């Protein structure tokens, strides 16, 4: 194995830290680097920091930056799992019906109380995912070809329900429109805390199965003949990645392209094996989302939805990668 893969993984960790520091110094309100350093010092060493600066840094920017890193990590890793299990380069973490299920939940949430939105979005996302899984079970294991079709069908069904609710009640549901666009506004430490807990509980499960994910890519029959319990591993990894994706969606709405593009970029650099990819894809996801969100929140005209930026950045990168592949 190429030793550069170790170096690149470590490099990505440093890149993430630098990205966090840079993002901390960028925002709609200009704060100079010296102000930032001085206030960090004052904040941690008990003196009285400037209220405006420290509030912006520690209660607005930093929680949002951490949220971007967490959500990017979730989307990167679940995008990778989806692409591997479905052996489909177009797989994205919403494939099993997460996003449209969450949209229905959000729409119902906004009709009752906006504070119920994340809870209902999560519940309905999991309902949609469960339906997809139940439809596609055969002989006690998940049939991935069926699951793609089931996911698409369930997505259409839930999208129709969500569209109908929104269409009927558009004036009471402006919140849904903002929610559907996705965004990391309103990030708080509480939100970061819970998502972080979920991430460190769930991520090791996926990392643990990285060897199996490699073997599954070669084909189901071969994987089984090598001793891999493909049915159990597919079900567990997909359910777990759908679960964290649902959590991510319920927290920040539907943010596209991160889950699709991060594994592709990772593969180009560290190769096919999940040995490194399982760490590299989420780190790339975290960096792309953080950079995109920093742009999204810093435009002088007021914030623009981050999904627009991720697609705007992600699509050209993907096109470039495909172009390179074609030339090889």
């Amino acid at each position, binding site marked *: 194995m190429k030793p550069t893969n170790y170096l690149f993984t470590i490099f990505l960790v440093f890149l993430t830290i630098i990205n966090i520091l840079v993002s901390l110094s960028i925002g709609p309100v200009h704060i100079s680097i010296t102000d930032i350093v001085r206030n960090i010092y004052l904040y941690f060493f008990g003196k009285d920091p400037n209220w405006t600066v420290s509030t912006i840094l520690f209660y607005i920017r930093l929680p949002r930056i951490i949220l971007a890193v967490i959500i990017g990590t979730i989307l990167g890793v679940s995008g990778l799992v989806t692409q591997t299990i479905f052996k489909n380069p177009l797989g994205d973490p919403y494939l099993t019906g997460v996003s449209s299920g969450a949209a229905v939940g959000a729409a119902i949430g906004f009709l009752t109380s906006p504070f119920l939105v994340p809870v209902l979005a999560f519940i309905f996302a999991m309902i949609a995912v469960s339906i997809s899984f139940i439809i596609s079970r055969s002989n006690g294991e998940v049939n991935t070809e069926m699951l793609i079709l089931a996911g698409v069908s369930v997505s259409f069904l839930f999208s129709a329900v969500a569209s109908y609710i929104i269409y009927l009640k558009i004036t009471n549901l402006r919140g849904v429109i903002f929610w559907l666009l996705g965004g990391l506004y309103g990030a708080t430490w509480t939100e970061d805390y819970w998502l972080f807990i979920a991430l460190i509980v769930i991520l090791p499960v996926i990392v643990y199965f990285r060897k199996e994910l490699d073997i599954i890519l070669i084909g189901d029959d071969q994987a*089984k*003949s090598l001793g891999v319990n493909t049915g159990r591993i597919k079900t567990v990894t997909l359910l777990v990645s759908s679960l964290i994706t649902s959590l991510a969606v319920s927290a920040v709405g539907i943010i596209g392209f991160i889950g699709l593009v991060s594994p592709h970029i990772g593969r180009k650099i560290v190769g*096919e094996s999940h040995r490194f990819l399982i760490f590299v894809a989420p780190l790339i996801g975290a960096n792309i989302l953080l950079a995109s969100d920093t742009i999204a929140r810093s435009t002088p005209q007021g914030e623009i939805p981050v999904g627009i930026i991720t697609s705007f950045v992600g699509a050209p990168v993907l096109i470039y990668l495909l172009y390179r592949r074609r030339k090889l």
Partner: protein
Amino acid sequence: MIEIRDLTVRYGKKIAVENLSLKVKDGERVILMGPNGSGKTTLLRALLGLVKFEGRIFLNGREVGALSRTEIAREISYVPQIFSTPYAFTVKDFVSMGLYSHSREWWHEDRRVNDAIEMVGITNLTLKEINTLSGGELQKAIIARALVQDASYILMDEPTAHLDIRSVQEVLDIISNLKNKGIIMVSHDLNALNKIGGTVILMKNGKLIFRGTKEDSDLKRWISETFETNIREIDDFLYFPLT
């Protein structure tokens, strides 16, 4: 020992293997022949536990249905028909997957992996990606993976199909040099029959119709009947002429 008792495999209403019983001793080499659709591959898949079946299969005295995937993998390894893959694993990554049933660690520096790669003669391709290999190179890598898996039996599904003349020779050489391994090999290649030798089993319409050795005087007649052709005419095209 592999013991098959009254094996029946159905695909819906179609019966692929019917009431088949068979014993394969440790270290025995079996060539499985038969027309397309006679149930050869299905038999291999049943042994691997990849299809549902009626009847009983014992691997060294233990019933397949009661074994986990890993336990089956320690008894029998599998060399599938050549496949194409878009996935860019290196040969080393790919071969090391064979160790899965023994340990979940990352074994890239394991001596067994390098030995197996060397044994099939593709050391120079160790860091090449499998999606860039030729058919013969990939087949050797697959055999190396099966060797690393270190099971008592190797099941092979037409290992020489789609290979060029030289690759067929090389692959057959590798297989015939395997020591202390039971081999069950599906093949339409009469060269394989000659080179590997051992037991010959003929299947037709899901049933076992002949069991013998290549020395059996009536083998040619049985082959001719099974395939409804006269094989004496192709003797001249064999690299390893029929004796």
